């Protein structure tokens, strides 16, 4: 009888598996596979781009595909755009597969497609600049006497940030040195909302004391007294987009628990219009770039208003519970107006307006049409993706969260939606059709807020479990865990230029994170 070897031990087995995996990675693409036909589709519109192209499998790496696509689109050498390629199968469960390195290892080797097929590849243009993941706490600044409830970076640069706190002050911080710049005193109760004006000159704060106040962002001085009118606390603020503003007469919308939204003329400090119609507390207000105001409320509806005269345009019904948060696909562009990644600021006001308008139109144009998409998060555990321009019906229902969805945001390039829920997860969705992409697991407490980096490659989320986590959007993996806060993190913001992340929470310290 032949000697029977004992079965391999666990250690041996894991070692063998590790070795096999390593060897696999080293494996290169076999060069006898010939070529494969590739058809490019635009992720934003879903339309075909160029003819189907035959590509040698051995050369079908992402780098080469990028070059090919740039050529197909007729981009000049200096305006070449990096692309991200994904494959979506037609099947029902259709998982989206990201082409990480080359076609062979992503699609052909797993047997998803063969060289006989024409491979449909969806491409998403990526930002030409790259934001590095924040990895360390650059400063932990004490100053606030109570929990920090809201935070926002200036659109101008990452060097100033404003935070609103439970000690009824808002503070402006110098993020380069980690020191306080100004204390905005005046409110008599918690400051619940803060918002920089799109040109970065003014700060608006909304408070528990039912008033809105305006401040000079440079000097830190109050611009007049409180704007009174609301009878309950302020939940959300939205500035009129820069390119829509009448010259010298910017406006501000404030949503309140008293179920109204008031539009203020910032210069004369008067109420311009009052948007009444909601039957419950208004939770969120967004001012779109096409002259519409979007509001969400506890009465389960989202209403769309004409910003000019305050008339109701649409009521979007679909949610089964209170609507918590809204996000516009153009949020990022509207927030930063004419400040772009190059850091060049136009000289005079007229140029600024044209620059802001051009930026907005460039970002919002899909198929030669300006499309502003809206996504709403609700207590009914779902989100809806809307295109209010075309229809009263939602484009998609985003199912998957197992508890209330608190916060939702569009990526600056409008390719993704990220949603933060009380079920400890952040979920990523395709912003075009609302298809589920992946779940970002890692938090062990409710996730309160999340924010994309300016290049849409990274996402930061703040949670009740006292940590911030930076996620790689592409792989869906955690990129950086940022512990440091001693208590719940209520507010987080990524600076529009991508340099820094600011966060604040119950532990009263503002933290600034950078790479």
């Amino acid at each position, binding site marked *: 009888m032949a000697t029977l070897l004992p079965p391999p031990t666990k250690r041996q087995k894991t070692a063998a598996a590790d070795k096999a995996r390593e060897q696999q990675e080293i494996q290169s693409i076999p060069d006898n596979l010939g070529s494969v036909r590739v058809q490019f589709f635009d992720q934003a519109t879903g339309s075909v781009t160029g003819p189907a192209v035959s590509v040698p499998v051995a050369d079908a790496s992402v780098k080469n595909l990028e070059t090919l696509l740039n050529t197909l689109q007729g981009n000049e050498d200096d305006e070449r755009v990096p692309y991200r390629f994904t494959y979506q199968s037609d099947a029902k469960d259709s998982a989206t597969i990201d082409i990480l390195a080359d076609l062979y290892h992503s699609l052909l080797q797993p047997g998803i497609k063969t060289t006989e097929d024409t491979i449909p590849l969806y491409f998403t243009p990526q930002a030409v600049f790259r934001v590095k993941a924040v990895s360390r706490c650059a400063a932990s600044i004490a100053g606030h006497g*109570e*929990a920090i*409830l*809201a935070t926002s970076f200036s659109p101008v640069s990452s060097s100033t940030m404003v935070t609103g*706190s*439970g*000690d009824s002050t808002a503070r402006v911080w110098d993020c380069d040195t980690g020191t306080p710049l100004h204390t905005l005193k005046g409110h008599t109760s*918690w400051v*619940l*909302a803060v918002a920089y004006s799109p040109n970065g000159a003014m700060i608006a704060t909304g408070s*528990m004391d039912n008033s809105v106040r305006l401040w000079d962002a440079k000097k830190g001085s109050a611009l007049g007294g409180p704007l009174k009118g609301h009878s309950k*606390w*302020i*939940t*959300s603020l939205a500035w009129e987009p820069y390119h829509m503003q009448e010259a010298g007469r910017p406006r501000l919308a404030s949503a309140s*628990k008293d179920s109204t939204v008031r539009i203020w003329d910032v210069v004369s400090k008067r109420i311009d219009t009052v948007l009444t119609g909601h039957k419950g*507390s208004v*939770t969120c207000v967004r001012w779109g770039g096409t002259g519409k105001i979007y509001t969400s409320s*506890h009465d389960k509806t989202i209403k769309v208003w004409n910003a000019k005269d305050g008339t109701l345009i649409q009521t979007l019904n679909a949610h089964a519970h209170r609507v*918590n*948060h809204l996000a516009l696909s153009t949020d990022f562009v509207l927030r930063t107006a004419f400040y772009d990644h190059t850091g060049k600021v136009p000289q005079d006001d007229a140029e600024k307006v044209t620059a802001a308008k051009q930026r907005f139109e460039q970002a919002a144009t899909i198929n030669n049409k300006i499309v502003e998409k809206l996504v709403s998060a609700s207590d009914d555990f779902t989100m809806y993706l809307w295109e209010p321009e075309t229809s009263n019906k939602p484009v998609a229902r985003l199912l998957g969260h197992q508890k209330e969805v*608190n*916060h939702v945001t569009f990526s600056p390039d409008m390719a993704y939606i990220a949603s933060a829920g009380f079920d400890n997860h952040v979920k990523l969705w395709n912003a075009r059709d609302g298809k589920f992409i992946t779940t970002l697991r890692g938090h*062990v*407490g409710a996730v*309160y807020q999340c924010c994309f980096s300016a290049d849409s490659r990274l996402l930061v989320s703040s949670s*009740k*479990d*006292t*940590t911030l986590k930076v996620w790689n959007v592409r792989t869906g993996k955690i990129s950086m*865990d*940022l*512990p*440091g806060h*001693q*208590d*719940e993190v*209520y*507010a987080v913001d990524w600076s529009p230029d991508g340099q820094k992340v600011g966060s604040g929470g*119950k532990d009263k310290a503002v933290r600034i994170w950078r790479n």
Partner: protein
Amino acid sequence: MPQNEYVERWQKLHGKRFDTEERARKKQAREHHRQSKDAQNLRGLRAKLMQQQRHKEKIQMRKRIKAQEERNVKSNSGDAEPKAAVPHYLLDRSEATNAKALSSAIKDKRNEKAAKFSVPIPKVRGISEEEMFGVVATGKKTHKKSWKRMITKPTFVGQDFTRQNVKFERFIRPMGLRYKKANVTHPKLGVTIQVPILNVQKNPNNPLYTRLGVLSRGTIIEVNVSDLGMVTTSGKVVWGKWAQITNNPENDGCVNALLLV
């Protein structure tokens, strides 16, 4: 018609007595007097039974009163503003936010160095080996030398435990007295949850008992608290935490413990 429902039959035939309501009212009015008399005069088993029943009735009554009172109180959860500052998205939520009392409480506690070694039950009654071990004397050899012991108290036996060969097995931990879970109370939150026991850290009576995993009053056990969602300051999830047993598991048939925070 059943044989014994003669009263109902009579009432159907002839109607109720004219003074039925009056008699019922009086009987009910006398009920308290009867109860009081019984309470004073009953002896022995009857007294015991009566007390048991009264006890149950009283519990029910208290519950009902409480429910009634709660109904009367205006629901203050909706409009009441929380004392500590919270962001607007948490303002109208009536969720129990006390789960957070813990992290700050833990921090305060850590600062007190002395608190590190204090436990809720500092002293326990000693348990002698005679009480703990029963001598097993089955079989000729074992009988002659009497070296085998059966543990007579509840124990925790880890999941990966396999019994030794009978010949070498010196201590037997009976299956019926093994426990896997403990009812752990969080002292600050006032919540009790049933969580798996991870191991026995220290039995104050005897290091041998620690090794054997004996669960007696005052024993420090490690429990799995991953359900509570606690995190350390460095952001790691806390999943093992120490707790002290507060009851006599042998008497109660369950393990109750207090979390050491």
